[in-house]
């Protein structure tokens, strides 16, 4: 029994390939049942987002399993063939496959490291697999664990805390000036893409008052409608300044639209209420001479970029911590998986019953000291016979089911019925809470066998864009 993953992501395949492989939600069910109908594929889970398409599966034979899953992927689209796909695919098995899922769930493999959508997408994929019974004992355990690992990474590292896009950096800065954005007014002068995105982020963070002015008043009206704001004539933008707490400027003008005098005047009217000015235009539209004015905080595109760069470094530092957590968690899960092997279970069962028998026989013989040696042998034989008959059925079933799809479930059940937890450590399925798991004995187990830690940060245009 092997846990494998075969798939491709933004790191290995261009969007032209990814979009062909992507399975729409409506066809997930059909795809899953097709996947599980391949011989030798016991369990399956299909993760399809716009940045990755991955198949997690439990297969009987490793090589054959890889082949089947690749075949499955190639079959999803008419124009694709296995040869087409091969250069873009990655294959992992065992600890590496599990580690890969953990890293994906924790958003360590994402285009924007630390983004949170992927976890929801994994939960959805798991939900679908569960409802269609494609996911069984092993995948259930592994995916649940992946979700708990992702949550641990989220709470114990600061991987998701910082802004990694220019427009979001503006929101982060705004929050260092205004503790509560709900009462604040944003003035949008011009409507470049980045400014619109920033405005959208600000609105998502509570800003309710949006005033928009563009040279083309009609355009301004349309935008105002979209942002639920008010359009104001372009000639009035200077008088609007005083009422704005946050000013976002991005026009194509080649000169300074907002001068130091304008801001000084506005500040006087505002009676020193702080004002946050963001100039996303190139060439700049706000005179840099605004900078020294008290209580007015001007940031241009370079400042925002710098902030993003710093945050990116922070994220990488946090990602390194998260990678370590993944390694630990894979080791813990690896122990559980190991315990599901049939042979060690039978050995453990044998020694456990032998030990029980020994103890009870010794106890009774100590009390029956008058017995002859033949009688003693008879007592011992009786005990052996009972014990062996008791566990015989279990042993036979375990051996018989070892190769069946529910083999792991039988092993797990046997371990629990006979209380075989001690060697090796076994964690009952469903116990996804990391905190309950002991963390000794994890060193060296599976460490270094993870997919090469890819800490490479990928640049992206905007974090705000939906990933799927």
């Amino acid at each position, binding site marked *: 029994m092997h846990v494998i993953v075969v798939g491709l992501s933004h790191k290995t395949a261009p969007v032209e390939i990814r979009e062909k492989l992507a399975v729409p939600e409506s066809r997930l069910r059909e795809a899953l049942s097709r996947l599980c109908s391949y011989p030798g594929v016991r369990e399956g889970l299909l993760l399809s987002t716009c940045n990755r398409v991955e198949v997690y599966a439990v297969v009987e034979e490793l090589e054959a399993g890889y082949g089947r899953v690749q075949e499955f992927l190639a079959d999803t689209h008419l124009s694709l063939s296995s040869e087409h796909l091969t250069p873009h695919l990655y294959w992992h098995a065992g600890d590496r496959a599990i580690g890969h899922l953990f890293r994906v769930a924790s958003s360590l493999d994402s285009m924007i490291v630390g983004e949170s959508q992927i976890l929801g997408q994994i939960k959805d994929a798991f939900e679908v697999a569960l409802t269609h019974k494609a996911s069984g004992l092993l995948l259930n355990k592994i995916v649940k664990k992946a979700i708990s690992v992702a949550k641990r990474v989220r709470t114990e590292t600061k991987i998701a805390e910082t802004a990694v896009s220019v427009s979001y950096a503006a929101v982060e800065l705004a929050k260092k000036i205004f503790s509560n954005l709900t009462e604040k007014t944003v003035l949008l002068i011009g409507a470049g893409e980045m400014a619109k995105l920033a405005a959208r982020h600000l609105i998502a963070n509570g800003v309710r008052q949006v005033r928009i002015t563009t040279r083309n008043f009609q355009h301004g009206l349309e935008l105002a409608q979209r942002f639920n704001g008010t359009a104001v004539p372009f000639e009035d933008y200077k008088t609007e300044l005083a009422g704005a707490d946050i000013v976002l400027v991005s026009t194509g003008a080649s000169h300074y639209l907002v001068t130091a005098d304008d801001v000084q005047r506005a500040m006087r009217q505002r009676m*020193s209420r702080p004002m946050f000015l963001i100039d996303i235009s190139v060439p700049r539209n706000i005179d840099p001479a605004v900078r020294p004015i008290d209580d007015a905080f001007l940031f241009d595109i370079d400042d925002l970029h710098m902030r993003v760069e710093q945050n990116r470094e922070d994220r990488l530092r946090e990602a390194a911590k998260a990678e370590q957590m993944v390694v630990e968690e894979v080791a813990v899960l690896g122990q559980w998986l190991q315990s599901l092997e049939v042979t060690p279970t039978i050995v453990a069962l044998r020694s456990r019953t032998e030990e029980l028998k020994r103890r009870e026989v010794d106890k009774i013989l100590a009390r029956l000291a008058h017995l002859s040696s033949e009688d003693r042998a008879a007592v011992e034989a009786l005990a052996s016979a009972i014990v062996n008959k008791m566990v015989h059925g279990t042993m036979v079933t375990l051996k018989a089911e070892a190769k069946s799809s529910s083999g792991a479930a039988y092993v797990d059940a046997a371990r629990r019925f006979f209380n075989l937890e001690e060697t090796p450590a076994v964690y009952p399925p469903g116990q996804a809470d990391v905190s309950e798991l002991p963390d000794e004995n994890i060193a060296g187990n599976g460490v270094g066998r993870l997919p090469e830690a890819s800490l490479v940060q990928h640049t992206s245009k905007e974090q705000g864009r939906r990933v799927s």
Partner: protein
Amino acid sequence: MSSVFFMLTMGLYFVSTVCYLAYLLRRAETLSKVSLGITAVGFATHTIALVARMTDTAQAPLPTFHEALSFFSWMLILVFLAVEFRRQLHVLGSFIVPLALVSLVTAAAFRSDEASSLQPVFKTLWVHVTLSMLGTVGFAVAFIAGVMYLIQDGLLKSKRFNVLYAKLPALDYLDHLNQQSIVMGFPLLTLGIISGAFSAEIVRGTYVNWNPEQTWAMVTWGFYFAVLVGRLTIGWRAKRAAYLTIIGFAGVILTLIGVVLKSHGSVS
């Protein structure tokens, strides 16, 4: 017994100060929890020390400079714990706890173990001292909010997005804290001065005799009055308010030094 707890408190505040200062420099948040724990224990021992002192001397709480300062320090920590509890503003500890430590150490320097032997009539003084001290706590918090404001303002202006920037709260919150502190401190100081005047009338038969200490107190009062009115009417807020409250607190410190010098003068 009170002296044991007093020394213990001083030790705890010292450790907590060190932790809180280290917290400023480090990215990790865990230190703040340690520091908060130590501060909370220190606050408990401090409370015991104050109560024990009261029962030891069988007197109203604040007859001497030592007790007044110790009480001041205790109130500062109380305010900090309240703000921390409501807003989880860990970084405030890095500013308030050191100030509390300084005032406690100063208190230790003026400690005397025998109960002060004031005439009964002087005992009404504790009302004056308590109110003035509460007012002073308000100004101290305003001062700290002002300092934090200027630091954050400077970091934003110079675009130095360091660890401190990440830990300090939003500017307008600091300005709000500044305002609240003065709004609460000013009436208390006013009442403190009025009760002081009444005490003086009882003792000396005149309400005000314009000695340097009283003059300074009146100047301080006038200053904060102006700060408050300026804020409400002509927008003395933000950076200007931060500067003003820092200057004002310097005035308060000078007044306190005046009190100390006077009391020493009267002893010798």
